[in-house]
């Protein structure tokens, strides 16, 4: 009895461990190891005070934007993917489902303005983060990234990468409905 148990442990245990191990490896296939979830979701957005792109002497603070939910879209004229998502961002802004603010990240204001002139300016306002400090506070690690911030200034969602129709459909719209209901 005891012997058969020890034989079982010795003989079958390695196999069991291996099967679990392969399952773990399989779970990793196809996932993107470079997608990093933000720890800021559900937490208050960091404080910021940044000049507006079009009126550099006007400073926009987090407090100025409270009371409404909005999408904060991090972009730069140097970023090719931002151009790819720009039509979609424009569509979201035009449709009026959510106000869109831009966070111009580590960019020369002239380049940014020229870029908006060329591809259209859908933003309600554009905040300029020339040094990239605010972006660090938001945990931005690439562009484009977009944050959904609610009426109370809480970060509800983060989109890493381009905003696509799927993202709008599956992530933004349900969340907007929730925020509308005051949840």
């Amino acid at each position, binding site marked *: 009895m005891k012997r058969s148990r020890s*034989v079982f442990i010795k*003989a079958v245990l*390695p196999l069991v461990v*291996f099967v679990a191990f*392969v399952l*773990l*490896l399989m779970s990793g296939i196809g996932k993107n190891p470079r997608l990093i*979830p933000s720890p800021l979701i559900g937490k208050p957005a960091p404080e910021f005070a940044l000049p507006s792109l079009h009126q550099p002497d006007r400073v926009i603070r987090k407090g100025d934007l409270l009371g409404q939910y909005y999408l904060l879209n991090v972009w730069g004229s140097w970023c090719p993917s931002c151009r790819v998502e720009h039509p979609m961002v424009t569509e979201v802004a035009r449709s009026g489902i959510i106000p869109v603010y831009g966070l111009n990240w580590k960019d020369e204001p002239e380049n940014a303005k020229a870029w908006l002139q060329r591809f259209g300016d859908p933003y309600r306002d554009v905040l300029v983060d020339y040094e990239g400090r605010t972006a660090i506070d938001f945990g931005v690690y690439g562009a484009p990234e977009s944050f959904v911030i609610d009426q109370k200034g809480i970060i509800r969602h983060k989109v890493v990468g381009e905003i696509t129709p799927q993202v709008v459909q599956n992530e933004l719209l349900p969340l907007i409905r929730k925020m509308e209901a005051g949840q």
Partner: protein
Amino acid sequence: MLAEIGQFLLGLALLTALCLSIIPLLGYFFKRDDWMLLARPLAYLQFVLVFGAFLTLVWLFVVQDFSVAYVWRNSNSLLPLRYRISAVWGAHEGSMLLWVTIQTVWVALVARFSHSLSHDRIARVLAVLGWVSLGFLAFVVFASNPFERLFPIPAEGVDLNPLLQDIGLIIHPPILYAGYVGLSVPYAIAIAALLGGDLDEKWIRWSRPWTNAAWAFLTMGIVLGSWWAYYELGWGGWWFWDPVENASFMPWLAATALIHVQAVSERRNAFRGWTVLLSILAFSLSVLGTFLVRSGILTSVHAFASDPKRGIFVLALLGFYTGGGLLLYALRAHKIRSEPGFELSSRETLLLANSLIFLVATFTVLLGTLFPLLFDAFGKKISIGPPYFGLMFFLIMVPMVVLLPIGVMMRWHRDSFARVVRQLTPLFLLTTVLTIIVWWFLRPLPLKALAGVYGGIWLLVNTLYALLTEKGRLTRGRLGMHLAHLGVAFFVFGVSMTEHTDFEKDLLMNPGESATFKGYTFAFEGVQRKRVENYIAEEGTFKVFQGDKLVTVLHPQKREYPRQRKPMTEAAIDPGLTRDLYISLGEQLNDQGGWSVRIYIKPFIRWMWGGGLLMMLGGLLAATDRRYKRHAEAEKSHLASQWLEKNSGTPDDKVTEVNA
């Protein structure tokens, strides 16, 4: 046309591997000698076909046939000839072909040097090796074909990654792969023994030189990789605990455990199941390495362009080889009886302790490498890096360093700890005195460096003592062991010195300025732009003085390859026995020709790689021990006489169970 020939050769090789993996095994189970005897010719044929395909790819690179997608992607017309050849294994498809080519070399070698094995045994071993070839050939043919054509034919190739345009890349992969796939030999032996249910000391004795040789290549491959990263990447690091580095380190650790436990299981009828499991583990970890490098499930600095489909293919292979091996083990484990016949205080015990320590080390690296994946499965993210591995490894290896000399000194079978302690006491005192002397010369030393120096000298003193007091003839096996242990001594010393006493400084230097660190004065003379072969370089000139004496002139570069968009750093290094001087060029910071510069002084870093080289030499020496040959010859004549006896007697019973 040529590409199609290569393709065709691979197809034929696949068929040959299929035959090799099936026919001899059927012969074994149906007791058909003629089928079993096909194993050797098939093994040779497979090698010739795969090697032919490999040469075809080399030729396609030499003549720059950009109609082949792989050639187009990894070379261009500016690429010098030597890099055109190494570009063959510069990316995924070609490196897999190299993998398979080297594997078939091992199979052919096994076929050639196996006349001491009875033909039913060699038939089984070659058939299992055939399974390995078959799986990886299928992977090359169906999932990473290097001969795929492009249409329309591009006029110019992309480029070989400049990082890989280096002597390090020419030699590092072939040697590393030789180690990886070499581990398929002990694996095949273990599986063959399980298949026949005849695991005896002959199997293990026969496995030992192959394991040692594969281990030696793996050691060399890792040392070369580390050295290459050190001088090529430009940030002075020699090991980053990156998943890909770990992928090569895990099989090495498991093989180290295997080598030590084989020493026990060959002599005693004990821990043979353990030997089998470690053989399976070592090869499985090299397949796992292939999976980690090529599936893209972990981020790494060295990763190949990854493709999930390929990942699934390699994972299936891993499941087949490891899962199959373990299943077979589960079915046959009850047949493995053990009667240790040695006491607690004996060399056997310490060898087993060694295998345990190395197994735990393997497991730790595996845990740290895959833990992020586990976190990922729960939607969380974590990074496990050098601070974790460094600490854990230090803690796990301390008992290894302490116990190593005790194990070497212990007698087989039965000994007393008291005797060994008595004998070791003077050596311990000598170690302490020597450490104090070394400390005096190298002071100040941080505690961790001092611990490493102590450990290194402890191993050095004891190994030299053991070497000098060898009684009887010093066999290659014993000498190899001592050399490898000496290598550990140098390695421990080198690592602790270079990790804990190195110097690093980032600074702005204008032409004509100089800076003095640790007795060395670095005088910067400026940067010049020049055009070399297929790149443009900005080359700095630094004169290094010690006092008034000119030590060396260093020329670090910042290179631009026309086809690549980003610059790369080429560090300049003055290697030395007691220190390396290492300079990297950052970027120009002002109009006066001032550059940002990084200067490293790395004490005793060469000792670390030197230690690795000694280990490799030790492994090779042990693999060629006469003992194996002597046994082999005795076995051969024994087999021959048995064969004669059998054939003159009962003609219907053709298969001989020699070991019964």
